[in-house]
């Protein structure tokens, strides 16, 4: 008998892929915001298509690294050594690509600010996911109590 609950290989692949795509979009928009602010501060109102292409590819590849090598650290329940190492390495990769791709004209001060910004983005994402889970905990436990109360009522009726 086929188990309807069982996810197919395709569905499992799709679930992972959607998670990575979502991550890539999230970090791409965060980086793009920093990049746009940098361009505006420097008096330019244009964004380079080449830079944006590099950004989205970079976010996508780092998304894979995050998920498959570093235990999806921005969604992790607890930050252990591997997750912290992932946070540092992924931040370093963003900095390296931004430097090689001349996103900020290799200006050390802006690159330093970008590093702080990426770390802040990661910390914000970690905090947001934790808050989301805490709210979910409350909701789940409320529903559990309700389920148990309803179940007891039904049992009494049957008795």
């Amino acid at each position: 008998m086929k188990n309807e609950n069982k996810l197919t290989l395709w569905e499992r692949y799709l679930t992972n892929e959607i998670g990575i795509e979502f991550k890539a979009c999230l970090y791409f928009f965060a980086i793009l915001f920093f990049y746009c602010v940098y361009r505006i501060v420097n008096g330019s109102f244009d964004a380079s298509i080449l830079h944006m292409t590099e950004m989205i590819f970079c976010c996508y590849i780092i998304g894979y690294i995050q998920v498959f090598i570093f235990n999806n650290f921005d969604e992790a329940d607890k930050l252990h050594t591997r997750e912290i190492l992932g946070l540092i390495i992924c931040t370093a990769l963003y900095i390296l690509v931004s430097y090689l791709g001349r996103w900020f004209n290799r200006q050390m001060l802006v690159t330093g600010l970008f590093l702080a910004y990426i770390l802040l983005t990661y910390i914000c994402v970690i905090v947001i996911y934790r808050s989301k889970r805490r709210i979910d905990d409350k909701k789940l436990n409320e529903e559990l109590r309700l389920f148990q109360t309803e179940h007891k009522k039904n049992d009494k009726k049957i008795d």
Partner: protein
Amino acid sequence: MKIDIKQIFEGEDSIFIRYKQETPTIKRIVSILENEDNKLWGRADGENVAVSYEDILYLESVDDKVFAYTTDKVLKIDGSLNSFMSANDDDSFFRCSKSMIINVNRVVALKSLSSNRIDATMESGEHIMISRRYASDFRRLLKGGR
């Protein structure tokens, strides 16, 4: 053991049990008659033991053997987790992973984890993981649907 079955057309249904010694089989028959099918039978320490369904915390399948856990007993039961779920239509038992079934009424707390998994703390203090595959069905069950 001699079995004498007789159909009657009037009066109340009745069952007589005559025995020289109260063996485990006799105990089991009496228990089934007294409690109907509200008990799960299994073996613990080489003896046939019955526990109420509501006392079961969870069931676990280990190497094709199924064990039922209460706060103070571990019973080896016949059949599989699938057959247990098919025979039992009580919605307080939920298949939470490939190898486990939990009694939702004996869960004291739930904790949402990453990747849409749920950690269930049982009355015994044990933590059971509701895997991602079953978590959405579990949420649906708590909301009143199955």
